[in-house]
């Protein structure tokens, strides 16, 4: 009982070497695509450029947090401790962008 409780945070499986390898490969591929996109003037001028880069960055962020930081496998309290402040930070950022007219609706 004691052992079960005291080691609750260790009672989770971690990704295997193969999964780590795939995660690294995806991170590399996405980064290459991001840099490639930066050098395509037609794509940079399009409306899709900024959203595409932000989505790719968010995917990389999520992959690292879920697999390398083991949040996918860890106790849900750790998830709450991370996502709570992350949401506050994201909301603050968006609020500032609206407040200083960096983003407009309509």
């Amino acid at each position, binding site marked *: 009982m*004691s052992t*079960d*409780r*005291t*080691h*609750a*945070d*260790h009672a989770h499986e*971690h*990704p295997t*070497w193969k999964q*780590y*390898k795939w*995660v*690294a490969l995806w*991170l*590399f591929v996405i*980064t290459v695509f*991001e*840099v490639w*996109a*930066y*050098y395509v003037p037609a794509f*940079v001028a399009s409306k899709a*450029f*900024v959203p595409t*880069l*932000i989505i*790719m*960055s968010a995917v*990389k*962020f999520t992959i*690292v*947090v879920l697999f*390398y*930081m083991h949040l996918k496998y860890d*106790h849900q*309290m*750790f998830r709450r*401790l*991370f996502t*709570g*402040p*992350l949401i*506050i*930070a*994201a909301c*603050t*950022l968006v609020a*500032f*962008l609206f407040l*200083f007219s*960096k983003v407009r609706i309509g």
Partner: protein
Amino acid sequence: MATVAAAGAHEAHEHAHYTTTGLNHRKIAMWTFIGSECMLFGSLISTYLVYKGRSVVGPFPHEAWTSPTGQAFKPILNIPVTSASTFVLLMSSLFMVLALAAVENKGKPGYEGLLGASKFWLAATAAAGATFLGFQAFEFTSFVHEGLTIRTNLFGTSFYTLTGFHGTHVAVGVLWLMTMLFIDLKRGLEPRDAINVDIMALYWHFVDVVWIAIFTLVYLIK
């Protein structure tokens, strides 16, 4: 008797390290710290984005600029160099998880060779972190030579503050990694030490995810 005392000491040791949640309190503290760091970097990135494009004088990040005196400035950001440093930092995260796996699974089948070489992976992670810092030192030095200091314009102030804070975090991570490597060389890290490596790895990966955001928002988005 001695065995009972030792068992009691072990139990006391465990109570000192674990909370009523059943989770290691140092790991809870690290996640709480990472949460607070999210808000710190959130505010620094917000500041950078709010000031973006509001500099009165150059050099600018993505556009060329000619000063009233006729001096020409190129776009200051060097994407190929920063892409290389980003790649190095991403690879350091892979090395870090391999170091943790090596310590957690020491002595288990399948972890006899390179996969079980915690010293190698810790050294590789520290070396990658130091390389990233080298890239950053090169970038800062070349920017100063090209006329961008922390006092030049709003871009310089917000850029150096944001990337400087991140670089400081990387430097702390490299020191932490080297300390862990020293312990591994001195007495060898065992599976019971995995929690210490795990907590350090959380910090290192957080530094990596912050850079993922900075690389896109500061360097790639024009």
